[in-house]
Structures are given as structure tokens and as C-alpha cells.
């Protein structure tokens, strides 16, 4: 029988709920941190495998960085969009190369910008939009929305949107097009700065497994 890892050394992992989280779990399990009970369908949110020294939590994707920064999880997987928007005090250890998409500016097809007035930008990502246009010296007015961003220019609420674009289908169906790409996005392995120091061996073992290195 395998020895159980002490609770102090158990790696607490915040996984983003949804398809991306399931894919990430697959990678972590292959890297030596399996927890088969997570695959059983149930409404549970916390799963533990003491033999492998790991405890997984399913959390809302945008909350992963909060769990990690506040130390409730030692590590987690968050999109680069969340890290750029909220700037949590965490280590960004790896680009996992999955969940790839891009942060982009989109506007109605044929939109012509009027440089004589501030550009109205609808977005969930206010900081990213402000930093992007600030870097160009462009005056903007931010309209912060929490969802259905695509309809803002159609209804005249904004001139453009700043949002995540995966395939571009939603944009096309709403007669919008990408005008500028701001930054490529993908899933990142993040760690709490303090937790990393006290659970270094486990985090490094996971990283080695993810990179396909033996440790």
C-alpha cells in the first residue's frame, strides 16, 4: 500500500469548473496527481486522494486566482485574461498551452472610428482595455458589462468591444469583426507565493510531470 502524504504536504488545487478544468485534471492526473473520485458524477466540489497527496476543488474560473492568492489553494489554473485583469499576487509558473484564444477589439463590420471624441468601449475587462488604449494615448469611455458584450455596439451602447475571441463565430453571427488583437490568452499554472515555498517538492514534481520530465 502506498504511504499517505501528510495533510501539511497535501497539494490543494483550484480547478476551473467546466471543459477546461476537466482537461486540466487529465493533465494533472497523468503528471502523477490522480484523484479518480473526481470523475464520478456528483454535486461534490472537493475531492481528495491522500495517497497521491492532492485535494482538488472545482471553482468558478474567474475565482481560481482569488483562491490561490488568498492561500485557500496552493496552486490553480487560470486564464491569462484573469491574471491581466485582476493582477493577483501569485507566481505564474507555466503556460499550459491549452484553452487558447485571444483578447481582441471587435466592432460592427464597416465601423469607422471618430478620433475627435472618446471611443466608447464595452467590456468585462476594464483594466486590460484601459491599459491597451492608454498605451496608445487614446481617450476612451469604459462601459463595464458582465455578459452579452457583443450586443453593446449593435444597440448603440458602445462603439467597440474588448472581449475574448475563440473561433469568432459569435462575432460573425452578430455582424462584428476583429479589428485589433490585444494579447493571446491561454491557461496558466499559478501558485501561491507562500505555499510554493512550503510545498516546493510537490509543485516541482507536478511541473516536471506536466513538462514530461522525470523527477
Amino acid at each position, binding site marked *: 500500500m502506498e504511504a499517505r502524504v501528510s495533510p*501539511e504536504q497535501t497539494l490543494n488545487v483550484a480547478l476551473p469548473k467546466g471543459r477546461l478544468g476537466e482537461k486540466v485534471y487529465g493533465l494533472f492526473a497523468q503528471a502523477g496527481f490522480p484523484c479518480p473520485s473526481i470523475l464520478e458524477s456528483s454535486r461534490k466540489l472537493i475531492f481528495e486522494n491522500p495517497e497521491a497527496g492532492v485535494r482538488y476543488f472545482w471553482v468558478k474560473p474567474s475565482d481560481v486566482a482569488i483562491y490561490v*492568492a*488568498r*492561500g485557500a489553494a496552493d496552486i490553480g489554473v487560470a486564464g491569462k485574461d484573469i491574471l491581466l485583469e485582476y493582477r493577483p*499576487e*501569485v*507566481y*505564474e*509558473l*507555466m*503556460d499550459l498551452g491549452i484553452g487558447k484564444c485571444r483578447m481582441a477589439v471587435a466592432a460592427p463590420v464597416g465601423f469607422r472610428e471618430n478620433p475627435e471624441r472618446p471611443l466608447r468601449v464595452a467590456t468585462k475587462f476594464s483594466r486590460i482595455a484601459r491599459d491597451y488604449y492608454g498605451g496608445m494615448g487614446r481617450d476612451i469611455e469604459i462601459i463595464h458589462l458582465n455578459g452579452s458584450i457583443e450586443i453593446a455596439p449593435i444597440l448603440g451602447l458602445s462603439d467597440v468591444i474588448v472581449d475574448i475571441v475563440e473561433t469568432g463565430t459569435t462575432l460573425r453571427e452578430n455582424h462584428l469583426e476583429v479589428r485589433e488583437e490585444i494579447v493571446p490568452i491561454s491557461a496558466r499554472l499559478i*501558485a*501561491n*507565493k*507562500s*505555499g*510554493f*515555498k*512550503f510545498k*516546493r517538492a510537490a509543485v516541482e514534481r507536478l511541473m516536471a510531470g506536466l513538462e514530461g520530465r522525470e523527477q
Partner: protein
Amino acid sequence: MEINEAVLEEKERTGFLLRELFHRHGFSRYRMGKFEEYDLYSRNKDFLMSDGVITFTDTGGRLMALKPDVTLSMVKNLRDCGEGLQKLYYHENVYRVSAGADGFREETQVGVECMGRVDGKVISEVLRMAAESLATLSPSYVLEISHLDLLSALVDGVALDDGMRKSILACAGEKNLHGISEICRAAGLHPGAEEGLLALLGTYGPPRAILPTIRQIAAANGCAEAAQSLSQSVAGFMGTEAEEKIWIDFSATGDLKYYNGIAFKGFLWGIPDPVLSGGQYDALMRRMRRKDRAIGFAVFLNRLDRLTEKGEK
């Protein structure tokens, strides 16, 4: 009359224990008022731990601030002592926006500042005191130490301008090595240009294990002196109980406008944020027209609440 310890809050008890430690090392208490002219902070905004300062107009019409920081006031109010050394400690409340707090909070910090002839011996003593402070709080601690002159030399080797330098330093603080490579590629640098910097940031852990590698990297990049200074600063820990709790880690960064040389942070098991932060700040002294060299650290007593919570459980 003796004080019954039961009447002390944990934060007060810890504050007194640390003050006793500083006193034992020959440091004297420095007292200060709660207010300072706002101008001091507006000129040194990046030095502050958080944005936002509580301001008010005093009876003389001056714009004042409730202190968000202790070090700036001490640098402003003390005089140079040349070849001498001022060894001071403080126990003060500051007012700042805390991470996670919705608005301003009053925070208590104790700390030490050395100003004057800060040489290798003084730096070693301050590092030893930082480790002793952490040991006073919990047996499970890590004192993370870096050398900003070495880090900045390697960053300057690849950064083409101030913006790029700032972005690379931010990535260094996040151990975001892939981010540094992306920045270098976007700037058109040839693949591998950042190799030395990545090697430095990827080498961390107890000094005995990693100093030889750090010396090699430093020598290959013309910074042998900085590596030597780092080795000397941690030499006092070798062979002691604290040795395994000391980490050399170049992700302990700081704003290079203010900090230089040795920088360090202290972590306790179970507390997500550093509870101690310090380093040399000769660059800040020069900005404020002071000739002395300086080093210090602060312990953030509010962050120790989690230790008490664990006891409650």
C-alpha cells in the same frame, strides 16, 4: 508591577517580543507622529505598498496625510551620520488600502532601519535579525533573499527600454519565465538572449545548494562582485539551524528606483502573503538627497491573524 500576558492581544504580545529582540541587538526606539505632509508621498508614490493615502487639510491650510508608510518619514526626518550608524526600531500604525480590504485599513507594523555606514557586517546582522524575527513568530518560516544589483544587471542585458525593463521585472517577481521569453521575442531579440536571466530566476533554494550556480551565472555576465556580496551576506547562516530556512530567490524584487543590493521577504507556513519585507534602499536615500546608505525591514502584524485563527481551530 508585572503585566499579566493574558490581557495582551496576540498582535500586542508579538509586537513587544519583536521590540525586545531589536532592543537586544542594540537598536533604539524611534517615535513619530501620525501625520506627514502629503507632498512626501505624492513625490514617492511608487515606494508605497498601496495606492491611496488618507489626506486632510490642517489648521494651517497644509495638505496632510495619515502615514501610509514609516520608512519615508524616517528618511526625511533623520540627518546623515556619515561614518556612524543609526540603529533604530519602530512600532507604529499605518493607514493603507490592503489587498482584499474594501477601502483603507489601520495596520500595525514593527521594523528596524539602519542608516549611515551600512557595510557587509550590518547587512548580515539585519538579515540575521529578520530570520530571528520570523523564528519568534513561527518555527515554520522561509526567509527569501535576492540581490537586486545582480538581477538588474541581467535584466539590463536584455531590456531595450524602461518599459521593457519594467515588464521583465514584473515577470521576474511572478517566476514567469515564459513571459520573459515572450517579451524578448516580441522585441526582436535573438532566441536565447535571455538565457542567463532565466537561469538566474530558475535557480532558487537554500544557499549551500545553489550559490555555486549563482556565482557561475554572475561570473558569465560580469557581475561576480554582486554574487560575492550575496554570498557574504548569507555566510552567517551556514551551519546554523536557520540555514535550511533561508532561500536565495531572485523573484524577491523591488522597485529599482528605490531599492538596490540585498532585498528579502519572510513567509510563514499557513499565511499566504509575506509577513516581513525589507532590503537596502540607498537609491531612495539618494532621491531624497541623503548621503547615508540604508537597510531595514518591517513585520506586518495584521497578517499574523491567521496564526491566531489556527490556534482557535
